[in-house]
């Protein structure tokens, strides 16, 4: 992250704070990692995360093809790095940046939060989503042309994603 200001600018900001107390956050006690339900080290959740990312890659691939876009065209339209898009579609271990999800949600007009969960960047709040993601991944192939079955799978999964929250609005 780049953010540059002069020393005078920072001093002015610090003076603006004066004697104010600055703090934010919920006052409830902190949950232990196992209580919180999203300990990244937990093996079953890691496996579930892999399945979700598989579904995420398939989803991006299918919806791109449904819109008649090549990877290059989608990269240009969504203002994304070409290599990152290729990794999303082909690399099961790849984790995209939050900005990428934001851009994809905006381009495809799908809920950003659901896409974040699917990409493994956020905690899954809806327990049905992983099941639907696995079902979707199983029904889809990364072949060149979208088959009738793939189109049906994509439509069904889009309906599930739409239930996750409001669609992205820029």
């Amino acid at each position: 992250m780049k953010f540059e200001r002069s020393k005078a600018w920072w001093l002015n900001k610090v003076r603006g704070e004066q004697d104010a107390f600055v703090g934010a956050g919920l006052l409830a006690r902190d949950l232990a990692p196992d209580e919180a339900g999203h300990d990244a080290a937990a093996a079953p959740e890691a496996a579930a995360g892999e399945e979700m990312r598989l579904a995420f890659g398939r989803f991006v691939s299918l919806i791109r093809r449904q819109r008649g876009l090549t990877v290059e065209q989608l990269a240009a339209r969504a203002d994304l790095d070409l290599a990152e898009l290729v990794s999303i579609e082909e690399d099961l271990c790849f984790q995209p940046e939050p900005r990428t999800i934001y851009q994809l949600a905006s381009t495809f007009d799908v809920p950003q939060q659901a896409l974040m969960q699917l990409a493994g960047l956020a905690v899954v709040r809806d327990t049905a989503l992983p099941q639907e993601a696995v079902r979707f991944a199983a029904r889809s192939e990364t072949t060149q042309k979208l088959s009738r079955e793939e189109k049906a799978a994509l439509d069904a999964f889009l309906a599930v994603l739409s239930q996750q929250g409001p669609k992205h609005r820029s």
Partner: protein
Amino acid sequence: MLTLMTAGASSPQLRDWQIHWQPALIEVLRELNRPNVPVTQWPQSAHWDWRRKMAQVAGLLAYRGFSVTCAGVTQGLMQIDLNRLAYIPVQKGKPLVYVEYLEVAPWNRPDLGQAVRYRGVGTALLVAAVALSQEEGFRGRIGLHSLPQADGFYRDRCGMTDLGPDPGYQNLRYFEMTPDQAAAFLGGENGQ
């Protein structure tokens, strides 16, 4: 110096929190633990455990930790969530950077009746949140639930919109910053 924070036992920020912050906080609480000092004046974040906070979101890129370091010691900590949407009507449903937790070191808190060692640590962390929001394409939108002692800072000094107490968040007041407010907050010099 503003740095990205890491989780785990090797994290220098979490080591500072344990080695430096905790003893300082215990000293403060010992001072405050007198009959004439109401509990409401005690530091509201005294029980926070940053090791747990970071462990809960380790490996999730939608959550990030930032710290301010000075003289080789961590002076402030912040955890943000990139998975939230705005509430106020002019930007409802748009993505923002949500400041999940923000805390400055006990020796930098003016509310504890002691000489503050470093001023502006909280402001620096908030600047980082707004700058990250701009970098993520969220145009500077941020949101946070303020600790009660800090309400005035966000409202009057940062120019954020006060949406009032949030019943879902222990009635903490919820504040949001719009792109225009962010531009004003980061304004001056090359910042428009």
